[in-house]
C-alpha cells in the first residue's frame, strides 16, 4: 500500500471508532461524567473542605488534574479493549485480516480511537470541574503532551488485553483488578510525599504516578516526580506496550488459528 492508501485505511479505522463511541454515548460519554461529578461533590466539596490544603492548593484544585487523568486512562483503555474484543467476538476482525492493512495501521487506528474517546471524556470532565473550582493551566505543552502520551499508553494496554481476551470476563479483569487499584493508588487523591518512605518507594513502581504527576505539573505547576523522569517513564512504557501489541498482531495471537 502506498502512503495515500495507508492514510485512507487509517482514516477508515479512526472514523469507525469515533462513530462507534459517539453512537453509544449513553454508555461511553455519560457514565464517566456522572462518576466524576460525584467525586467532585463528595471528595472535593464535602470531604475536601475538611482536608484543607495539599501542595499549596485547595483539595478540590489538587484532585482535579488526577480525576481528569483517571477519566482519560479508563476511557482510552476501555474504548480499545471493548471495541477490538467486539471485532473478535463478532468475527469482523476477519475483515481486517483479509485486507492488506499493515499491522501498525491497525494498532494506530484503534489507538487513535482510544485517544479520541479519552480526550472527549477528559474535555467533558474538565468542563464539569469548572462548575466546582477555578482551573488554571500552568504549562499547556506539558498538559497536552502528557495527556496524549497517557491516552496512547492505555489505548495500547486495551489493545493488548483485547488480543489475549477470550471472553467478556477477560476484558473486565484487568480494569477491575489492575487498572482501578493502580489509578486509586497513583496519587489521584493524595500526594505520594505524604506516604511513609517505604510506601512512597513502592508507589514509584506504579506507572500511573508518573502520568498523574506529570499532568498535575501541567495544570498546577506542582509534582511529586521530576518532569523528565515522568516523560521518560511514560515514553518507555509506550515503546514497550507498542512493541508487545505489534508482536501479538504479527503472531496473530488470539485472532488466527
Amino acid at each position, binding site marked *: 500500500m502506498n502512503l495515500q492508501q495507508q492514510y*485512507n485505511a487509517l*482514516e*477508515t479505522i479512526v472514523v469507525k471508532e469515533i*462513530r462507534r463511541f459517539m453512537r453509544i454515548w449513553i454508555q461511553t460519554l455519560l457514565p464517566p461524567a456522572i462518576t466524576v461529578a460525584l467525586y467532585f461533590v463528595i471528595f472535593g466539596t464535602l470531604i475536601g473542605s475538611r482536608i484543607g490544603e495539599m501542595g499549596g492548593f485547595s483539595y478540590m484544585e489538587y484532585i482535579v488534574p488526577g480525576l481528569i487523568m483517571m477519566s482519560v486512562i479508563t476511557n482510552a483503555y476501555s474504548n480499545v479493549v471493548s471495541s477490538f474484543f467486539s471485532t473478535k467476538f*463478532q468475527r469482523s476482525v476477519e475483515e481486517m485480516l*483479509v*485486507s*492488506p492493512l499493515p499491522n501498525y495501521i491497525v494498532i494506530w487506528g484503534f489507538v487513535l480511537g482510544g485517544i479520541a474517546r479519552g480526550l472527549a471524556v477528559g474535555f467533558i470532565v474538565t468542563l464539569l470541574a469548572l462548575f466546582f473550582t477555578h482551573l488554571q493551566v500552568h504549562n499547556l505543552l506539558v498538559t497536552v503532551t502528557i495527556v496524549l502520551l497517557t491516552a496512547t499508553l492505555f489505548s495500547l494496554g486495551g489493545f493488548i488485553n483485547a488480543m489475549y481476551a477470550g471472553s467478556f470476563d477477560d476484558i473486565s479483569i484487568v480494569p477491575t483488578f489492575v487498572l482501578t487499584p493502580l489509578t486509586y493508588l497513583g496519587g489521584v487523591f493524595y500526594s505520594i510525599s505524604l506516604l511513609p518512605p517505604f510506601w512512597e518507594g513502592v508507589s514509584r513502581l506504579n506507572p500511573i504516578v508518573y502520568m498523574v504527576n506529570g499532568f498535575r505539573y501541567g495544570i498546577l505547576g506542582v509534582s511529586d516526580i521530576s518532569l523528565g523522569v515522568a516523560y521518560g517513564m511514560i515514553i518507555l512504557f509506550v515503546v514497550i506496550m507498542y512493541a508487545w501489541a505489534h508482536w501479538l498482531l504479527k503472531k496473530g495471537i488470539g485472532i488466527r488459528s
Partner: protein
Amino acid sequence: MTTALSVRDLRKTYGTGFEALKGISFDVQEGDFMALLGPNGAGKSTTIGIISSLVNKTSGSVSVFGHDVEREYTAAKMHLGIVPQEFNFNQFEKVGDILRTQAGYFGIDRKTANARAEKYLKLLNLWDKRDERSRMLSGGMKRRLMIARALVHEPKLLILDEPTAGVDIELRRSMWEFLKQINQQGTTIILTTHYLEEAEQLCRSIAIIDHGRIIEQNSMKKFLAKLDRETFVLDLGVDLQAAPEIPGVALKMVDSHTLELEISKQESLNQAFAALSERNIPVVSMRNKANRLEELFVALVEKKN
C-alpha cells in the same frame, strides 16, 4: 495462461495435534470457475483460511497471481476477495458502512468507496437496505452482503465458502447467475459447496479434498465422463404392487406409482421402455434421480475411505 492461485505442499497441524492438511498442491488458472469439494472436516475451510490469512499454515506456500500471501501480502490480498461460510460482519453497523469500511481497509478513498458500495449493493439488490443495521437483514440478504463486501475492492480472484448455504432456491439461482456473470467478465472463482448440483452447473473444473489430501483434480467434463451408470426416476400412469422384472435393468419401487431405474451408460433406455410398454405400464414422466456429480463424489470418497 496466468495462474490465479498456486498452492504448494500446504500442511496444517492444529495445536491439538490434528493434521488438517497433509501436503496439498493445486493450481487454479485465471478465468476458471473451480469447485473445491469435500466432506465436512476434509480441510476445505482450513485451505481457504490459509489462503486468506485467517489461519497460520504449518508449512508450504500459497501465491495469488504470483504474489506469495506472506512475503508479498499487500499485492496478494489486493487480488483476493473472500466470502466466508459464517457471517463475520459487525451486526450493529449499517449495510452501506460495512462496504465503505471494507473498501477503506484496502486503501480506497472515501469518494471511490461510496461509488463502489452503491455499485455492488445495487448489483446484489441491497441498495434499498443501505441504511439498515446489518442484523436486521434476512439470511439471504446477509449472504449477498458478504458477496458485495468481498467485491468492493474488485478482486481478480473470488473465493466463496458455501455461499448458498441455507438460501432458498430462487435466491440461489439468482446468485448463480450473478457468479456466472462476474466469471464471464474475468473474475476467477473458487467455490466450495455441499450442493453438488450447484458445482456441476457452475464450475468448469473440480478439486476434491478428503482427510487433508487432494484425491481428485480434473476438468468437470472429464470428471463427469467417469460415471458409467445413471439412475432415473419414472412416474407411472398406473399403480403397481411390485417392481416388474426386466433383464439387464435394475428397477426398484419408490411408491406404488414411482419406479427407480438404474442403467449402464452403454445400454439403451429403449429396451427398458419397450419392456414396460409390453407390461402395460405407461411412463408419464422421467428425471435424473440425483445429479451425476453427487454420485461420483460419494463413490470416490467412499472408495478412498
